[in-house]
C-alpha cells in the first residue's frame, strides 16, 4: 500500500529529498546479503510504497512539495534531476514568492486558507495515482512559519478529506538554542493542533542528531545536509520492507498501519521517538562487526536510560524490580530516572536476523502496568541488509523520551506568554490568546499523562 509524502517548508523539502534518496539507494544497493529473488521482492515492495512508474522507467517519488519560497524547492528538484536515478513528479510542487516570516499564525490563517485548494488538488492527484493508499507522511519543522503553521493547517484538511487514511507527521524538533525567537510559540501551537488531527508524530530532535553527527560520525563541519542524511537513514531503517510475520518471507503490505496499530492506538499518547544502532559513518563500517546480542543490549539500555546516542549510555539506570513499589511518579527534574515505555517496536535488518533474541525487551518492568508486554512490544525483521550495514537495529518507541523536551518548550513558551511578548504578531492574523491557552492546556495534559504512566 502506498504512502504519499507531503514535504512542507524548507526543512520538510530538504529532508524529504534525503529520505527518498536513501530509500532509493538502499533498494538498489547491491550488497543486500540476500538472494536475488528476495532482493527483487524487497525492491518491488519499496517501490510500490514510495515511488511510481513512468513510461521511460525512471521512478517518480510519491510526493507533493510545498513551500512559500521558491528557493529550496528549486534546489531540491534540481538535485533529484541531476542524480537522475529518481525524480519528483513534474507538477507536484506548489510554491509562492513570499515566505511566512517564521510566523505560525501567518502560515495557518493566511497561507492555509488562501492556498488550500491548490495544495489539496495536488495531493488529490498524487492520491489518484495510488492503487491503494495507506496514508500520508507530512514532513515539517515545528519552529518556522511555513512548515509549522501551514503544516498544521494541511494536516487538518487531510483529516477532513481523507479521514480513513492514516497520517503521520515527521516533526523536526528545533535546536534548544535555536535562531527563531518565537520558535516555542510556533512549537506549542503546532503540537496542540496536530494532536487533534494527526494519528502519530515521529519526532526528530535537531540537538540529538547533531550530536550523533559530531560524536559518532566525526564530521567536523556539520551541515544540514549531514543532519538530514542521518535522519533519512533512521527513517529508512524503519520504513523499508520487513517480513509480515514470524516465519513468513513475504513483505508486509502496510507498515504504516501496523506501526500505528502497535504504538499509538491511545489518543493521548501519540509521540514517538526513534533510536537506531549502530550509529557510525559508512566509511567505518568495513572495520566493524557486530553481534545481535551486543546491539540489542545497547539498544535496550538506550531505551531505559533515555540515551540519545550509542555512546555515553548510563548503565546505572535499571528497571524497577517487580514487587517493590514503583519508582515514584517521574519528576521532570530528576537526572537519573527510568524511562517507562508504553509500547515499543524493534526493527532488525541483516544477517542472521532470525536468531536475534529480543526477550529482554519483553520484560514487564519496562512497560506500564496497564499493558502486557505481549501487547506492548513487537518486532519486525528482514534478512535483507539496509544500506550496506551488515546488521542494524531501529527502535520506535512510545515512551517518556520526549517528556522533558516538551516540558521545556511549554515552560519557555509560557514564560514568554506571561509577559505577552510578541503576541501581537499572532493576534494580527487571527490567533487569539485563547488559542494559546487551549494549546497550553492540551500540552500540559499530554505531559501529565506521560508522567503518570
Amino acid at each position: 500500500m502506498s504512502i504519499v509524502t507531503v514535504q512542507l517548508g524548507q526543512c520538510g523539502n530538504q529532508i524529504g529529498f534525503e529520505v527518498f534518496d536513501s530509500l532509493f539507494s538502499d533498494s538498489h544497493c547491491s550488497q543486500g546479503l540476500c538472494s536475488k529473488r528476495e532482493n527483487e521482492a524487497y525492491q518491488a515492495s519499496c517501490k510500490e510504497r514510495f515511488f511510481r512508474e513512468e513510461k521511460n522507467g525512471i521512478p517518480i517519488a510519491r510526493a507533493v512539495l510545498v513551500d512559500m519560497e521558491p528557493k529550496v524547492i528549486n534546489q531540491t528538484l534540481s538535485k533529484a534531476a541531476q542524480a537522475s536515478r529518481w525524480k519528483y513528479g513534474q507538477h507536484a510542487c506548489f510554491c509562492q514568492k513570499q515566505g511566512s516570516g517564521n510566523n505560525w499564525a501567518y502560515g495557518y490563517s493566511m497561507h492555509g486558507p488562501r492556498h488550500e485548494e491548490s495544495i489539496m488538488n495536488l495531493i488529490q492527484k498524487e492520491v489518484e495515482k495510488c492503487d491503494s493508499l495507506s496514508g500520508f507522511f507530512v514532513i515539517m519543522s515545528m519552529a518556522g512559519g511555513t512548515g509549522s503553521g501551514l503544516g498544521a493547517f494541511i494536516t487538518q484538511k487531510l483529516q477532513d478529506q481523507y479521514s480513513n487514511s492514516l497520517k503521520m507527521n515527521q516533526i523536526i524538533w528545533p535546536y534548544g538554542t535555536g535562531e527563531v525567537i518565537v520558535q516555542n510559540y510556533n512549537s506549542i501551537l503546532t503540537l496542540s493542533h496536530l494532536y487533534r488531527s494527526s494519528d502519530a508524530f515521529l519526532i526528530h530532535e535537531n540537538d540529538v542528531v547533531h550530536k550523533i553527527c559530531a560524536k559518532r560520525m566525526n564530521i567536523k563541519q556539520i551541515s544540514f545536509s549531514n543532519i538530514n542524511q542521518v535522519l533519512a537513514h533512521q527513517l529508512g531503517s524503519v520504513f523499508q520492507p520487513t517480513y509480515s510475520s514470524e516465519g513468513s518471507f513475504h513483505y508486509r503490505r502496510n507498515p504504516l498501519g501496523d506501526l500505528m496499530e502497535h504504538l499509538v492506538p491511545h489518543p493521548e499518547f501519540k509521540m514517538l521517538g526513534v533510536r537506531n544502532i549502530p550509529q557510525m559513518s559508512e566509511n567505518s563500517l568495513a572495520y566493524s562487526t557486530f553481534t545481535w546480542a551486543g546491539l540489542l543490549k545497547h539498544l535496550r539500555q538506550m531505551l531505559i536510560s533515555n540515551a540519545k546516542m550509542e555512546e555515553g549510555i548510563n548503565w546505572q539506570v535499571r528497571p524497577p524490580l517487580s514487587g517493590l513499589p514503583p519508582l515514584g511518579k517521574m519528576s521532570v527534574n530528576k537526572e537519573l530516572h527510568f524511562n517507562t515505555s508504553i509500547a515499543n517496536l524493534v526493527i532488525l535488518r541483516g544477517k542472521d536476523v532470525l536468531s536475534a533474541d529480543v526477550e529482554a525487551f519483553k520484560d514487564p518492568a519496562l512497560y506500564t502496568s496497564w499493558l502486557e508486554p505481549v501487547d506492548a512490544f513487537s518486532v519486525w525483521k528482514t534478512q535483507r541488509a539496509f544500506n550496506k550495514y551488515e546488521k542494524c537495529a531501529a527502535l520506535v518507541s512510545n515512551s517518556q523520551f520526549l517528556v522533558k523536551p516538551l516540558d521545556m518548550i511549554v515552560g519557555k513558551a509560557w514564560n514568554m506568554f506571561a509577559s505577552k511578548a510578541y503576541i501581537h504578531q499572532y493576534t494580527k492574523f487571527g490567533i487569539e490568546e485563547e488559542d494559546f491557552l487551549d494549546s497550553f492546556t492540551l500540552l500540559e495534559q499530554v505531559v501529565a499523562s506521560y508522567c503518570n504512566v
Partner: protein
Amino acid sequence: MGRRRCRATGALPQAIATLSRSLPAGPSPEIFRRAKFDRPEAAPVLWQLLFRVLAPPAADSTWSSLAPEAQAQVVKSALHSLGYPRPVLAQFPEGSRELLLALSWLLARGPLLEQLLDKTRVQLGDQLPQFEALGSLGPPVLHVETEGPMDLRRVQWLMGKLRFRWRHLISSQQEQCTLLGKIHLYTSGCHSHQNLGHLSVTETEMLRDPESSQQLLQALECENTRLEAALEWRCCELVFWQWMDTVLDACPVEGPSVASQPTVLPMISEHGLGELELIEQELQALQEELQEVAESRRAAWEAQVRGLGRGPEWGTTRKALQESVERELAALQGSWEQSSRSDQLHRPHRLVRSKEGAPGPQGLRAAEVIRMLSAQEACLKRMLHQLQSQCQQELARLSGTLPDLIWILAPRH
C-alpha cells in the same frame, strides 16, 4: 392400513435420501432410522449436521475447528435463541432422537433448505458485499469473562486498535474497488452475454488458468445435484412428515413441564386456511391487549396533566411537545420504510460496469444503492446520537449524586 404402510415404506427411504442429498454433508437414511430409535451411533453425525446448519456463516473457518463439545454448545444456544420449545437437549453426545426432532423442527419452521443453498451458492460474478439488516439479531456469541477491573487506559488502547483495523479494512475495500474497476475496464467487450459486457474476476481467472475452471465446473455440478434434490424433496416431503409424527410418538412421555408449554412444533400436515385463522386470532388478541395498555396509560397521563395550569406557558410547552413527538414519529416511520425498501440490498447482486445512459435491464443502479445506504447511515447516526445523549444524561445524573465531583466534558473536536 397395511396397504398404506406398504406404499409408505418404499417412498420413505427415497424421501429421506432426497433430503440428505439436498443438505450439505447430509447423513444417510440409515442414520435417520437409527435416530428414531435413539441409537447413540447416530448422534455425532446429527450434532455435526446441526452445527453446519446453525453456525454463523462468516466464522465458518474458525468455528469448524472447535471441539465437538463446544460445537454442541453452539448448537444448543442457537436453538434456544430461535425459540426451540422442547426442553434442553440431552448431554453431548447422546440423544439422537432429540437431534432428529430438532432438525425437523428447523426444516418445518423456515425455508431452511433455501437458506442453506443460498449460503453455498457458486458465484460467477463479482458480488456486492452483503449488507446486514438494520438491527438484525446476530449469531449466538460466546461470552468472555474479564478477570477483574481493567484500567481505563487499556480499554482506550483496545478501542484505538479496533479503530485502526477498521480504517485498514476500509482502505483495503477501496483498493479492491479500484482493482475491480480496472479488471472490468480492461475486459470490456469480452463477455458473450450482451447485458454484462465484461468479465468478472472469477471469469478472468478461468481464462488465465484452465485448472480453476475444472474446479468451478465441479462446484457447479455439485450445486446442481443439491438443487435437483431440493426440488424432488418438495414433492415427496409429505411422507417424511408422516414418519416424523411416528418419531414424536415414540418419545417417552415427559413430565408435566412439557405438556404445559404451548406445542409450537408445527408439523405441517396440511397447508391452508387453518393457519391463517390462527394468525388472525392472535393478531386480534394482540391488538386488544395494546388498546387496553394504551387506554390505561392515556388515563394515567390525563390524570397527571389535569393538575397543571392552562397558562400561555403551557400552550407553548404543549406545542413543543407535539412537534417533537411528530418528529420522532416521522423518524420512526422513515426508518421503517427504509428497512423495508432496503430489503433489495440483501439479495446477492452482481457488479456490472456499464456505459452511462445505457438501458439497464433489471437490478439496482449504483446511485440508488448509494442513496439507500446514505439513508441508512443517517438513520444509524441519529440512533447513535440519541444513545450518546442518553448516556450523557445518565452520567450527569450519576455525577450529581456525588457531592464532591466536578463534571468536565471533553471538548468536542
